[in-house]
């Protein structure tokens, strides 16, 4: 019904290629998050679905309909802008009802729809205010109300929470999620914040340099990142990536530092591999214990629930997160071990996951 499909989408601006070939499909009702570093093309993709940009080549489908040639105003798709883009000279009520008015909806219909949406979003007392009289969070909600009221087939969000302070951001995340559960509309949400992606998405699309790196549920991306980029991008603090060479069943990082490889890893001696270990997957043992990585504590951070240790091992920075109180001091020497299943192996040259 209102699924979105991108087929071989390419986008060039002059001689620069922003989107280099993207294929993806978002089924009806899914909350998909496009995430990636600045310049990866996520906003451009979103705007192409909106109709504000045209693909240089490729097809966009809304349901069964190919919408490449349908102008933005006719696509029945709503967008929430990063800066909200509320009409400064209109009241909240007129802002929300504007699209319906353009569509020549009857005034009573407009009023009832606006009031219904306002109620859901907690805006019913603010209908006569102007945007400049509202707080950031309120403006955000008006922007969403404006998008909701037309009952579009797809919601598009372009980094809507970037301009809010941290606390408000967390609150709005939950609200948007709740709204989605209530309305069930297919949604595409663009952000550079992987925490937002992880907490809000049904599925995440990780983009880099105009290409899709991986598509999957948050769990899939977390547990089985498909390359070092996704591995380091998803998860905070980032996954530790330690390049080394395979020597007799373990990975050697030089100067005798080695970590035992788990049994199921089938790697050849001499292979250059990068180990990925999430900070919380380390176990701390005595320095020098067999099969452990020698590390020295540089900084300790105590977050209340966890202890975070920033260590150096073999000249590299390694972050360890322990879900308990540990009395580690700066300068302490420890050994780090990883359980086999928690170890991710990547080919150092290509960055791709092995096994």
């Amino acid at each position, binding site marked *: 019904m209102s699924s979105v499909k991108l087929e071989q989408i390419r986008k060039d601006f002059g001689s620069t290629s922003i989107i280099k070939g993207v294929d993806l499909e978002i089924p009806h009702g899914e909350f998909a998050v496009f995430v990636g570093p600045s310049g990866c093309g996520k906003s451009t993709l979103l705007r192409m679905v909106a109709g504000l940009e045209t693909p240089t080549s490729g097809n966009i489908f809304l349901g069964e309909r190919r919408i490449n040639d349908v102008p933005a*105003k006719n696509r029945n798709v709503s967008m929430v802008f*990063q800066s909200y883009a509320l009409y400064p000279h209109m009241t909240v009520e007129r802002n929300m009802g504007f699209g319906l008015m353009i569509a020549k909806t009857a005034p009573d219909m407009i009023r009832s729809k606006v009031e219904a949406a306002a109620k859901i979003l907690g805006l019913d007392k603010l209908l006569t205010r102007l945007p400049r009289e509202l707080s950031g969070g309120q403006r955000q909600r008006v922007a969403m109300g404006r998008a909701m009221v*037309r009952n579009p087939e797809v919601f598009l969000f372009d980094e809507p929470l970037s301009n809010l302070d941290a606390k408000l951001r967390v609150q709005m995340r939950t609200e948007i999620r709740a709204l989605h559960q209530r309305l069930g509309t297919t949604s595409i949400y663009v952000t550079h914040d992987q925490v937002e992606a992880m907490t809000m998405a049904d599925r995440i699309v990780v983009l880099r340099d105009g290409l899709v790196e991986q598509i999957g549920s948050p769990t899939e991306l977390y547990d089985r990142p498909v390359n070092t980029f996704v591995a380091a991008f998803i998860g905070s603090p980032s996954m530790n990536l330690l390049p080394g060479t395979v020597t007799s069943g373990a990975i050697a990082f030089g100067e005798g530092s080695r970590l035992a490889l788990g049994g199921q890893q089938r790697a050849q001696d001499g292979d250059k591999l990068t180990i990925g270990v999430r900070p919380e997957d380390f176990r701390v043992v005595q320095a020098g214990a067999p099969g452990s990585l020698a590390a020295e504590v540089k900084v300790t951070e105590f977050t209340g629930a966890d202890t975070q240790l920033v260590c150096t091992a073999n000249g590299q920075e390694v972050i360890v997160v322990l879900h308990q109180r540990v009395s580690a001091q700066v300068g302490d020497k420890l050994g780090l071990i990883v359980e086999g299943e928690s170890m991710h192996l990547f080919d150092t040259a290509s960055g791709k996951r092995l096994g």
Partner: protein
Amino acid sequence: MKKLLDKFLFAVMVLMVVAPAVSVFLWMLSLSLKNEVDTLAYPPALIPSAPTLDNFIAVFNGGPFFSYFLNSVIVSGAATLIAIAVGVPAGYGITRMKARKMLLTIMIARMTPAISFLIPLFTVFQAIGLTGTLAPIIVTHMVITLPITVYIVAGYFETLPRELEEAATMDGCSVWQSFRHVALPLARPGIMVAAILAFIFSWNNFVFGAVLAGRETRTLPVAIYNVLTFEQIAWGPLAAAALLVTLPVLILTLFIQKEIVGGLTAGGVKGS
């Protein structure tokens, strides 16, 4: 103590700057209120000994002043209205199309002395035989009103965030609807400023009327120029006439002086 001295010096400097500007107008007022005796008196005094409104009465009686006033109103009003009707969408279109070439045409218009347009236009109007009406004067005044309208209005539209219009597009607006419901209301202050400035500069214009107008179709600046004689010193009525001609403009200026400070500087710094 030094602070007081500084403040005093500053006040003196302010006075030095503003006084010359204002004093000419005060003198104009003074001359217009003087009867013949005061006018010829030496030394000339700022405050007339016997202020009188006779000069103003003489202006109204001496010629069809109201008719000239009306001519000016019609000419400048029409030239401004047409400039707005045509120039506001143009200013919008230029910023959205990033059409710098139009602005170049406007620059050329600004660089050319007004008389240059008069010569061909005058020739054409003569050939068509329209020289007796206000129409050619209105058309020529558009040389003044249109460029400045487009320039100022374009500046205002430039500051409109594109996201607002994208939101309007997503809300289903066509290009025209987006202009009408979003861009236009938000540019209203700019349009007002442009209109007032265009009106003022059109009102002040002398040369177009001087060439194109006949007896009945003169605008005010032309009319009062013809009052000037060098033999007699009929200064009272002359000063009164001058005051009456420029008073509307002065009032309009004080009205929008804040916007002028904003509007002209934006155009001045950005463009020429």
